[in-house]
């Protein structure tokens, strides 16, 4: 802890510098690939959609860009009806049978 912290003085410029470094690293790394996440979303949904009907309005995509790793979170709401179809058509994917619950 520096002396200035003891007196309650925040050194916000350091935070600003770090935030900018992380942000610009992501922005510079992806010129022309800014739509990567929407693209990933479409591909993931298409893959899942082969097995379960998915309503694209019931999908929430969240991202947390970090300096070491980034987190991509995709919440897909699957209706109970769709789960029913899943159990009947493809028992291989039933998590209960796979002993995961």
């Amino acid at each position, binding site marked *: 802890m520096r002396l200035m912290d003891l007196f309650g003085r925040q050194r916000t410029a350091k935070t600003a510098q770090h935030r900018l470094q*992380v942000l610009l690293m992501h922005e510079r790394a992806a010129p022309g690939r*800014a739509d990567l996440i929407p693209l990933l979303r479409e591909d993931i949904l298409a893959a899942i959609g082969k097995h379960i009907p998915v309503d694209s309005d019931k999908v929430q995509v969240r991202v947390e860009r970090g300096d070491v790793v980034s987190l991509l979170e995709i919440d897909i709401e699957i209706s109970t009806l769709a789960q029913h179809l899943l159990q009947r058509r493809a028992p291989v994917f039933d998590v209960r049978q796979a002993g995961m619950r």
Partner: protein
Amino acid sequence: MAHVLVVTSGKGGVGKTTSTAALGAALARGGERVVVIDFDVGLRNLDLLMGAERRVVYDLIHVVQGTAKVSQALIRDKRIDTLFLLAASQTRDKDALTEDGVERVIRELRPFFDWIICDSPAGIERGASLAMRYADSAIVVANAEVSSVRDSDRIIGLLDSTTAKAKHGQQMEKYLLLTRYDAIRAGRGEMLGVEDVLDILCIPLLGIIPESKEVLNASNMGTPVTLSNPASAPARAYSDVARRLKGEEVPLVVPSDKSGLLNKLFGRRAA
């Protein structure tokens, strides 16, 4: 149904984005449901001042073009759960903003919020024009400085002629927010005073935000100043503005961080 506010100025760097973030946070902390929308396509910054820059997935252009639903593009604030951000696109051209698209986005948001605050880009081109187009009222942000006052006058003219309200023959409510105000310099006659600016612009004064180092600290941290240091002078001034927006009668004083004799004397005189 939401009240749609545009925060505009003409001139850049006067504090539109700072004011949008500070007022959005102050209103939301009071329990109001608030969405702040960045209209600065290509040069977004509201996400940075809100501390949400690492979390933007979809933006206004995606919603306008139908790639994402508005509910999928809203970013919920991590500190206040009634505060949301709709970011601008960093990569698209500003021509991607369409009048119909913006109108639809605002129509879709209205039932779910108390306040929709549109952060206008500088200038008078497409982004600025669309940010004000569907507003119910306008906050004109100005500094007590000649070029800012002149640009504000120009913007007031546009608010009265190019907005949907104006085209329907209605009067657009316009309020002046004087930012980066230095009461001491105004008192010494080195800076235009509040009355000088009001005489020229002839719109009601919504608030005076004092020049303060806390504003830079807040932007460094990515926290609206009303949350980063609520006891600071600019935060108190913004909180007063938020209460006035809600219809409360709040006496107009210029809060101060300092308590020096000179500041007290001149601060009072300027207020």
